[in-house]
């Protein structure tokens, strides 16, 4: 499909509508035509530019030949889910991180392994007071519960990947649902609590020194360990995060290398900014099925002026992800793929990612990540038949037992909104 045609089809699909309306203010009438023309122009230029510089690669999709060839290899997939729980005076969490390992072509009962790597229902954080006590000095508590939860999710997912890579030395590739490396700075403001010793130990898989039990150093340590794992690890990002970190970085990198004149760099960045399309949106019309950009390192912890002073030494040495976008098929938008710098067998892994994404031809996302996502988010006892009565029974049972943890769990379960995934019916 030609770029112009692709843009036309996107417009009718409504993807570009928001951008179009924004542009419309400056472009006036003949809106659609102008938009198509201009974006087409940008995309054409970008396409020619990228290809001329050997920045576009292609992963082959020959499933009938590819899959049988994977026989005997093992691939791992990790994803987690968080329950949005809001209880007064507490910051409890409900997090489950699951893993799925599969050996294509294995006809034995050992073909698949599903495991809940982490199932966290208590506080990870060491800060007093404990979950159910009313804090004596509420002002003292770090109160951004969403941030606590995000930090816990981010670190437990990556910790699960680490645990899996240690347990299954036979993995050929390990895919994580979501970014491989997240910005850490937001979790380092003053007052952001440390993890408990037990939480840190279970996340890291070994005892962690008191100073290191904070998100920023612990997350880094886990990432660094994971980088050394025998299997290359990739983060596959389902949602378009917006912005153009990759394309802009690419232009800058080339400029810095002396491959791009200053004027061209400025014009290119200005063009990108003008139409305010995200990396995924632009690349959607630039790339063809199976194509991806040559991976480029994108600094993840920028900008450094926002680093919390306590942690800037740490943030300075954070690993950065090699980033690319892969367009799985003509009809779906590219998704972001991240790995560690220096990752081996990158091309081969891209072929695997493409093949697993093509197994969901309409959705265009690696099917095994979808599988582990469902596994982590749907507790095995949940079924479509569960009604309110069941919750009440659960609660009563919990209180009949002496298990405090179970009681807390039950309360948390009941306090979450019914739309939360904890109550999501069977898929």
């Amino acid at each position, binding site marked *: 499909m030609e770029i112009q045609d692709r843009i036309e089809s996107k417009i009718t699909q409504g993807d570009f509508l928001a951008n179009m309306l924004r542009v419309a203010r400056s472009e006036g009438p003949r809106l659609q035509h102008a938009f198509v023309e201009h974006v087409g122009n940008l995309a054409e230029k970008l396409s020619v530019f990228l290809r001329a510089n050997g920045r576009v690669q292609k992963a082959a999709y020959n499933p009938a030949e590819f899959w049988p060839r994977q026989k005997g290899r093992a691939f791992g997939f990790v994803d987690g889910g968080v329950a949005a729980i809001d209880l007064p005076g507490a910051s409890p969490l409900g997090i489950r991180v699951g893993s799925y390992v599969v050996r294509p072509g294995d006809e034995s009962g050992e073909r698949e392994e599903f495991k809940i790597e982490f199932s966290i229902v208590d506080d990870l954080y060491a800060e007093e007071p404990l979950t159910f006590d009313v804090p004596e000095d509420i002002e003292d508590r770090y109160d951004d519960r969403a941030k606590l939860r995000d930090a816990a999710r981010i670190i437990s997912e990556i910790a699960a990947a680490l645990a899996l890579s240690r347990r299954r030395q036979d993995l050929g590739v390990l895919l994580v649902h979501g970014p491989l490396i997240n910005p850490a700075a937001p979790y380092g403001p003053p007052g952001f609590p440390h993890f408990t010793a037990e939480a840190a130990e279970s996340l890291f898989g070994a005892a962690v020194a008191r100073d290191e039990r904070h998100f920023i150093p612990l997350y880094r340590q886990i990432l660094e360990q994971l980088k050394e794992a025998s299997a290359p690890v990739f983060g596959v990002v389902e949602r378009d995060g917006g912005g153009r970190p990759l394309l802009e970085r690419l232009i800058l990198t080339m400029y810095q290398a002396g491959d791009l004149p200053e004027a061209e760099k400025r014009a290119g960045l200005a063009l990108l900014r003008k139409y305010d399309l995200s990396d995924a949106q632009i690349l959607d019309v630039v790339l063809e099925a199976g194509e991806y950009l040559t991976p480029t390192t994108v600094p993840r912890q920028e900008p450094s002026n926002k680093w919390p002073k306590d942690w800037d030494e740490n943030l300075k040495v954070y690993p950065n992800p090699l980033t690319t976008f892969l367009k799985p098929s003509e009809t779906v938008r590219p998704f972001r793929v991240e790995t560690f710098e220096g990752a081996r067998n990158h091309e081969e892994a891209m072929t695997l990612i493409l093949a697993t994404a093509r197994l969901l031809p309409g959705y265009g996302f690696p099917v095994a990540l979808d599988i582990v996502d469902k596994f982590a988010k749907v507790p095995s006892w949940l079924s479509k038949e569960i009604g309110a009565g069941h919750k009440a029974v659960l609660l009563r049972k919990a209180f009949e037992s002496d298990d405090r943890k179970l009681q807390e769990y039950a309360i948390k379960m009941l306090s979450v909104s019914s739309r939360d995934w904890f109550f999501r019916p069977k*898929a």
Partner: protein
Amino acid sequence: MTWITNSENMIGTVVGNTSTDSYKFILRSFRAKVGDIVATLSAIPDDNKSHGNAIIWGRIVSIDRHNPFFPAEAAQELAEQNLRLIDTVLSTSRDYLNAEVLILGSSDEDSTSQMDLSPLTYPVQPAARVINPPASAIKKLLGASEDNVPKLHVGSLLGRSDVDVSLAANKVVSRHLAILAMTGGGKTVAARRIILALIGHGYPIVIFDPHGDYLGFYENRAKLPPGTDVKLFYPMMKVSEENITVVSDLLAKMGRKMTDAQHDFFNKIVMETKISDGTKASDYILELIQRAENTAAKIARKDKEDDAEDSPKKFGATTVNAVKRSLSFVLNALKQMEQNNKVLCERLKDDYQFHEMPDPKRDPEDIVRKKQVSIFYLAGYDHLTQSTIVSMVLDALFSHRAALTNRIPPFQTVIEEAHNFIPSRQEGTDETPSLMTVRKVITEGRKFGTGLMIISQRPARLDETILTQCNSFLVLRLVNPKDKNFVRSVMENLSESDANILQTFGPGQGIVSGQAVRFPLLVKVHHDKNFESSKIGDEDFLKAAASWNESGTRARNRGAFTAAAAPTPAAKASPDANKKEQQPAPSKAARSDPPSLKFSAVAKRKR
């Protein structure tokens, strides 16, 4: 710890809304099958406003399986790209199994010896653990511990060969049992099993066997318990002083209704005709017909003379002729039956010893006797004859029981191909005298110990009154929707899912329900291969046709006259027989040429 609390026996967790009739649970992979008996522990309120634990028993009636991890989109891609799921990263192992359980009842948690089922009065607790009970517990539940109660062993629980299934013998013999399944479902095998169990109790048995399915009992009688006698009967109607009504019975059963006048005339000729005991009914009828002819002749003469002195013109010619015609009709049927008997005895005489059927009115003891299996072999007789025999025999035996004459013990009657003997009204019941007899036996039978076992492959064609009187059912594979619906309508406690499972049964697999069991069970009937007839059964028709030889005489006579019309050398030179063989007739030679030659000849000509 008892089995009900042992977590190793756990196979799933109750989910969703529960009731006192059913519940659903999430089943762990490969831990149970449809038909399995399962148990859960649940609290039930008692009379004292407190509550105690009870074991809730149930049977899995359906299992839904779905794989939430297998998106439909993926299936499409697999198909389009011709991929094997197993070669990809897709998952096959995380199926969700949603099982539905029909509740059978509850029993005490700690009943040690006996396990009594009572109806469940309070729903099962959601989230309760579902347990796969050990065989010993199920046996206890099925009543196996009640050792003093006589049982008829039929087989094992479907999918649990370690748990035997038996019928309560008393419920089978005093009530009635229907065995229903499509052809090949295993009805006869099941009937044989139950009969063998009854034989084990020395119970008298009468079998009406239209196909010879039960001749195996005779062939293998040496393997039966000592003292067991197997008698094979062919039908025969005889008259005797005690059984003077046999002819009028025959007339009635064979559908010849007489007017009052005809009755009077019939009685008159019967009175005038001397009976010597043991005369064949056919001979006797022949005499009656002669007498009727005489009377007719007399009437004709009297008519001419117009002199009505000692014989007032009581019987008109029409009456006399009508009686004569009816008698001839019955005579015809009897003659045919006798002819058939002859053929039958001739054909089977090497392997079987057939007896003339005893007169059921006069000698019921010869038919119903302890440790005796009486088989009425009805193959080859027309429908009316078969039905008449069943009717005559059952009528007489039942009367003996009902009249409390103490001449015969209680007995069990087996009716194979019952749709022929007790058809529903739509099937046309005119020529089926057995229908009324069986109806009588089945409605009053329990009082007199004349239990029936009814076997049929077309339940929907059976008389509904009779079928609803059956208190126990063994239903094997049934596919025809009409039959399934009919079975559901007459079996009170057959659930919809049970009805749906009927078509999935293999041979010998079925549901047994009713009074003979404590609750409906899925069974695998035991197959007594030893007692199958080796001679009668599935014939190999292909082989029979291939090795068919025209009777020699017929073959010799072929063309005896037609061929003679054309003068042949053989006909002219008849003394010279040798020559004839050396020089066969040209036409004959051409006919006996191998086909290949002919084809090649044709081919040549074409060229």
